[in-house]
């Protein structure tokens, strides 16, 4: 385990920072949101990102990826939090790429990974059946039919689900809600018969979809991993996603914090800078301690993906729970410390607040992860 970035990773992070500040500052995200863009992210920018290799950064070289490791990816994602980049990086390059790398057979890997890495297709993970993260609670069903399955159910809150070319469906082939045994993963073309996708307009201005699955026919070759045993792939995939979201939340929390500290040094009331008020100083200092602790936790989690698979579940829950809490604290305080202007749409702080709430829900809120952490630690 290393809690400092090596030279290559540091270089990657600073390249990412420069690239994002130049090509997708927060203003660009604001334009996308205001134009109600049909895709929800800039296709051109996504292609540039793919050309830089980031779409395939954790994909093995033999499948067209950079094979750079998860710590590098997390460093990039942290930077995307600073500029609120809307992109399929987490849905496609973290969740779906991980599912294929960990669970795909040779053919599936060859069919999809190179295209995913070069930006020509995106994939999305259709997981949640309900309004709270509950992967074991999936009841979307896949019943045997014609040597394959028929999938029925409804998926909600599918990140980038409306625009993805392929979907990874999580469905139950046996067992009951709450059981890990009996879940299976299927790779399906998003245009398949029986799939109806509705884009949902979310508070963060990004992409999510509700997806109706009505007798969607999938063949045996579309199964990802083994039948009933999808959990052994899904759990580590979700942990990678949680760590990626924690990295994004870390970046966005630092950005909201830094902007707020700047404002405390600028804004005057009662003839003095508001940053001279100790009531605000102490709250800022407490946030700072939380952010410093968060740097260590997120970096450790990103390194654990490659270095400590056995410890990953608890480490991922530690990171996601912490970043949910810290992001909530920091974005609330950021709005409050800006006063009236803090609740205007004109100021970017509100965008950070809104994205925070969505990223907090994605793949598990604090309650979910504290409960999981406690269970994993035997209490």
């Amino acid at each position: 385990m290393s809690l400092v970035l090596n030279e290559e990773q540091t270089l990657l992070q600073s390249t990412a920072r420069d690239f994002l500040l130049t090509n997708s500052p927060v203003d660009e995200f604001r334009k996308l949101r205001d134009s109600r863009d049909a895709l929800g992210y800039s296709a051109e920018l996504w292609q540039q990102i793919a050309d830089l290799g980031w779409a395939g950064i954790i994909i093995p070289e033999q499948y067209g990826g950079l094979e750079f490791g998860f710590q590098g990816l997390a460093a990039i994602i942290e930077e995307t939090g600073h500029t609120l980049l809307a992109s399929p990086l987490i849905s496609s390059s973290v969740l779906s790429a991980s599912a294929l790398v960990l669970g795909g057979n040779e053919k599936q890997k060859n069919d999809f990974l190179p295209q995913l890495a070069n930006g020509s297709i995106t994939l999305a993970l259709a997981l949640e059946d309900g309004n709270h993260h509950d992967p074991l609670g999936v009841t979307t069903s896949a019943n045997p039919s014609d040597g394959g399955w028929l999938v029925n159910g409804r998926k909600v809150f599918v990140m980038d689900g409306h625009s993805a070319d392929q979907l990874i469906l999580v469905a139950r082939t046996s067992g009951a809600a709450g059981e890990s045994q009996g879940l299976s993963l299927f790779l399906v073309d998003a245009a398949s018969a029986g799939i109806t996708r509705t884009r949902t307009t979310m508070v963060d201005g990004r992409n999510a979809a509700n997806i109706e699955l009505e007798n969607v026919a999938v063949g045996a070759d579309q199964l990802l991993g083994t039948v009933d045993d999808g959990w052994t792939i899904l759990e580590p995939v979700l942990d990678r996603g949680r760590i990626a979201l924690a990295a994004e939340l870390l970046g966005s929390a630092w950005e909201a914090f830094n902007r707020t500290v700047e404002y405390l040094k600028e804004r005057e009331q009662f003839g003095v800078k508001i940053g001279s008020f100790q009531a605000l100083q102490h709250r800022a200092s407490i946030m700072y301690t939380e952010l410093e602790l968060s740097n260590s936790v997120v970096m450790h989690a990103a390194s654990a993906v490659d270095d400590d698979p056995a410890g990953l579940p608890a480490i991922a829950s530690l990171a996601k729970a912490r970043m949910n809490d810290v992001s909530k604290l920091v974005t609330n305080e950021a709005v409050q410390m800006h006063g009236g202007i803090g609740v205007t749409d004109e100021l970017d702080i509100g965008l950070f607040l809104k994205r925070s709430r969505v990223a907090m829900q994605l793949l598990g809120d604090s309650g979910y992860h504290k409960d999981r952490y406690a269970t994993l630690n035997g209490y």
Partner: protein
Amino acid sequence: MSMESLDQFRSEVRQWLADNCPVSQRTPAQPGEQYWGGRRAEFPNADAQLWFERMRDKGWTAPEWPAEYGGGGLDEAQAKILKDEMKAIAARPPLVSLGIWMLGPALLEYGNQQQKEKYLTAIVRGEHRWCQGYSEPGYGSDLAGVQCRAEDKGDHYLVNGSKIWTSRADVADWIFCLVRTNTDAIKQEGISFLLIDMETEGISTSLIELISGESEFCQTFFDNVKVPKENLVGEADKGWSVAKSLLKHERKLMSEMGTDIPSVDPRTIARDYVSYNAEGKIANSEIRRQLAEYDMYIQAVGLTHFRGFEERMHNIQGNSPLIMKYVGTEAERLKGEALLALMGSSALGWEGDEFSATEKQALRQWAMSKTLTIAGGTHEIQLNIIAKRILQLPQ
């Protein structure tokens, strides 16, 4: 030092500890089992003495001090290895001492040759027990305001005034003291740093009882106490720099308390004190949440200690050292409250045989945690420091 030689060093240390640390010294020390050294000190038991002597002879009572003063001459990476290996077998520190934690590092930076030879060697050998004369009844957080007076009388200083919250002044041999030598200058520029033998005529102490029931600290009175000039550390009126440097070491030490092996650990004690539901979860979800939050916080603090260490090894200038006193003592505070929540009324026994030693220890640990967010610069002072030094907010 190269990775290979560090690995080599680690295996030597491990072997040496296995051979030399008595088994009885491989559990967290209960109060009264620690060896603090000093003229009047007695060893709690024969194993503690053996362990101390072996470590002293290696120079490992002060691993990072130069060997010429009886230290171990280790660099930071080696010292961390020694610390980690001791932690791995739960080895007790052979000697605990304000001399090692605070005064020594300050003397290494500011003391003259004669002072280093005289005091450092006595500290590593456990011959002098030191106490800290910083706070005064009127000046705690506002430490630079200290009034205890030291008048220049040619060959000596004449000290008059009092210090308060002086931990273990009643048993200490020496006190390092902030005294006012100049009343005309602005407050930080009239302070000197003096070393005073507690046996000098005119010094007296009175004990103050703490909420934990212990009489850990004292008020210390100075009534026409003569202190030889050679006991001045650094220059006259320039003692504030010495004082601040020492505080840095004090806070570093306090920041590590939260991640030390606790004598009562909420994570392991839970089994015996709460009921679990059929799924194996603590039935009371509020207690369970509190335990998880403590556990998660302490993990974050431990990882941040490690990150700080790695940054120093890579010469990266980070800000994490300035937050560690706050977060380390915050972890202790969370631990104390978690213990009380987990143990219920079992942790509320004050004395008597109806409560086990562990239970009474948990209560003391909780009470002690209240002192940690005050001593060494309060929580609020730490937040002020972060606001000023890191965030550079307007004052």
